[in-house]
């Protein structure tokens, strides 16, 4: 039977754990807010680039004029950009993400090669023996366009050189603080159907519209990856915040029940001692 001292020691250690998880919860909350603000800050650019692209798509074009990044090909090879956190302690997020990615890999007809962003996804893909083409880790908490342009360039180069015929990105969509949904979205070829059909403005294009389109599409791809990255970061921190809140709650519950146990044990000890004394006195009489 545990004695009072060991229980007290146990309570102290649980309390320390609770302090740490509480701190992590608060850090995650502030990082989540920052990621959400970045998403909002990037919205005007995203909106505008979509509008311009919609207008460009509405321009009449010859079949052979279709830009390489728009042209659909027979899919013989797929590239999956798998965005995951670098660190764990974020509840079921990582395993949900990895499961969604694995499902996509197993469900697709063509062979899939993987580009991982984040250590958790890398470890999973390497462990399950996937064809890992490139690995990116150590993404900052507030990534800039410069941080993701290497990923975008890799995707665009592999697509235009014909090494892959389709590029998809998997990340955790931030629905709200409690819900993060793993999604797999197509990046290349760029799907015109995704673009909201805006009314054609009839710009004067300078230079010709095709060249403008050629300059715009890579940036559109970059922006989509950037957006996915921000969503992933917001999801990671919100998942971690919830996980850490649960951990703190559990620790506090444990402290309560341990305290109760400690008091019970102490009372029993006192009762036993009293009985001993009373017994001793009775024996003397």
């Amino acid at each position: 039977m545990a004695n009072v001292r060991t229980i007290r020691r146990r309570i102290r250690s649980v309390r320390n754990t609770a302090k740490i998880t509480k701190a992590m919860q608060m850090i995650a909350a502030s990082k989540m807010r920052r990621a959400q603000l970045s998403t909002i800050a990037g919205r005007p650019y995203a909106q505008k680039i979509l509008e311009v692209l919609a207008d460009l798509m509405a321009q009449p074009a010859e079949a052979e004029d279709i830009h390489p990044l728009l042209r659909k090909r027979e899919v013989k090879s797929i590239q999956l950009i798998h965005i995951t956190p670098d660190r764990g302690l974020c509840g079921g997020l990582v395993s949900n993400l990895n499961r969604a990615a694995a499902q996509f890999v197993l469900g697709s007809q063509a062979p899939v090669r993987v580009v991982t962003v984040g250590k958790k996804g890398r470890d999973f893909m390497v462990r399950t023996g996937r064809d890992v083409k490139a690995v990116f880790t150590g993404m900052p908490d507030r990534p800039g366009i410069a941080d993701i342009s290497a990923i975008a360039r890799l995707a665009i180069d592999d697509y235009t050189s014909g090494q892959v015929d389709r590029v998809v990105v998997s990340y955790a969509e931030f629905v709200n603080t409690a819900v993060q949904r793993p999604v797999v979205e197509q990046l290349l070829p760029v799907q015109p159907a995704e673009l909201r059909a805006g009314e054609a403005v009839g710009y004067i294009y300078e230079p010709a519209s095709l060249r403008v389109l050629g300059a715009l599409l890579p940036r559109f791809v970059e922006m989509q990856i950037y957006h996915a990255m921000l969503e992933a970061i917001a999801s990671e921190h919100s998942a971690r915040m919830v996980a850490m809140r649960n951990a703190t709650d559990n620790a506090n519950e444990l402290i309560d029940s341990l305290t109760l146990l400690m008091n019970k044990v102490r009372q029993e000890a006192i009762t036993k001692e009293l009985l001993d004394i009373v017994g001793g006195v009775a024996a003397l009489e």
Partner: protein
Amino acid sequence: MKLEIVTAERLVYSEEVSGVVAPGIEGELGILPHHAPLLTILKPGELRIMKQGQEDAYLAVSGGFLEVMANRVVVLADTAERAEEIDEARAQAAMKSAQERVTHRAADVDLERAMASIQRAQARLKVVRRRRHPPQAGGGG
């Protein structure tokens, strides 16, 4: 005329202006109120903003797009910085390393990218230096 400068990361500038001079890919282009709808590619350079009764302001942009529509100018910039945001030493270092890459041309050097970074650094330095030594005359718009 309203001018908005946005990057993928943030809204940089949003104000009423009386004119804009932008580094278009086919040459500098000036835009005054009631310009026809236009969409053009920008190259790295300085963007001059003219406002009534104020000195011209300059921003360094490193490429992007410029859209004119319904008396509104929107610049979709890859990056856009005001003079006070530019790190001059860093721009200079970038310029130097890019120039080196161009002169001692190794086999794996991407000339196009090196030239592009020279242009970007040049644009930044131009804007920074203009702030330090403002032109004495002809600065009005």
